[in-house]
């Protein structure tokens, strides 16, 4: 039960506090943010959308950390490959 898509909150509904408009790659939809009532999202924040509801906020710091890890692995890999190539030059 899994299809969740990240979307950016563009604006909150002026009258209904549990609705917000999100942008997914240029596509806009009104979604229900009632499940985040403890810490409602603000325009500019990103949420995970599932069947018309925001299930969770996307933690940009955690996302950055995840990317750093992956980039780190990527860099280490590239370094290794370069070292490997370097060592083959005879």
């Amino acid at each position, binding site marked *: 039960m899994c299809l969740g898509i990240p979307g950016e909150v563009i604006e909150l509904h002026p009258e209904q506090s549990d609705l917000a408009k999100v942008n997914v*790659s240029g596509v806009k*939809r009104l979604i229900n943010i009632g499940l985040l009532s403890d810490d409602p999202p603000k325009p500019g924040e990103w949420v995970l959308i599932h069947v018309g509801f925001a299930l969770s906020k996307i933690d940009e710091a955690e996302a950055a950390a995840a990317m750093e890890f992956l980039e780190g692995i990527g860099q280490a890999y590239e370094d290794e490959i370069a070292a490997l190539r370097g060592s083959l030059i005879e």
Partner: protein
Amino acid sequence: MTAGSGWIGEALREHDHGQRPENPDGRPSLPVTDREQQVLDRIDRARRRRPRVREERITMSHGAGGKATQTLIEAVFLDAFRNPLLEPLEDAAELRVPGPRDAPGTGTGTGAGARLALTTDSYVVSPLFFPGGNIGDLAVNGTVNDLSVSGATPMYLTAGFILEEGFPVADLIRLAASMRDAAAAACVSIVTGDTKVVQRGKADGCYINTAGVGVLAGDVSLGVAAARPGDAIIVSGPVGDHGITIMLARGELDIEADVVSDTAPLNGLVADLLAAVPGVRAMRDATRGGVATILNEIARAADVGVLVVEDDIPVRAEVRGACELLGIDPMYVACEGRMVAVVPGESAAAAVRALRAHPLGADAAVIGQVVADQPGMVRLKTSFGGTRIVDLLVGDPLPRIC
């Protein structure tokens, strides 16, 4: 679905006969990968069997352009009407009309006969008016395109209308005006037609059928069966615009996006391509079922493999966003103004240049190749670098939540 016990039994027997002799301890003696290959072969054989329609009633899947549609066409219509002109099941049928000095049954042009392309299409889209056009535009452009991709110069169209009681005349006038303009843009004339009215509740306002006839030049002979390993596969622009526009225009999904239908007549674009690349093997109009359906048609008709690269397939950002949101693959979404061309590998660059020089082909791109391995199968190299199959869908791609 009450799957008739007959064919389940058949499948089980086939499975059992396919089993290799077992070891004394009961396990099959083959290594795992060979066993999997056996199953893949079995499936391949099953898929090549004679098509049969198992359902008792028509469902929406039969109209989606995928597997169910194909099975219906082959099992019901091809079976009933079978003749050599119908068999190729291309976008248009190629006819020879004998001239006054030809021997009967020929039409080689020496006796001033002609080679014609004939096609027909029905348009049942709802809503009738949508961003980028209306059912009238589709009715003209769609048929013009089927003729164009067959290599013919489109000339004359018929237009048959089935109107629902209560349909506003003002809307009909709008549709007719659109059709007039579309025909002018495509340089065709609508020369005959028909009108019927059915009771309120049927025909969704208006259904239109158009048939078209065009002239094939003496030396042009296109067909997907001619595709061969080394050929390049080109798409004339971003895919999925029309299908997503319609889905959103139906208003049920509450999604706003700046997408418009790509409906357009392709005859100018096609002419430019044929002039630049005389060796074009085939062209197809990408409509319902999307680009994926055409790729499968190529693989099947020519018994070749097709390998396409996800990163090379042009898709607009909004179409991609809507597809991600709904869990739909843009490769299966309908277009109405895009074509897929198969050209010899060495002509690919020239083909893309020719297409890009035309306003309707500005984003044309090579999306893949015809290959020799795994014939009959379409594979996709994903952005991620892995590979997967692109099979025909049974019916419409359904939005999913899982």
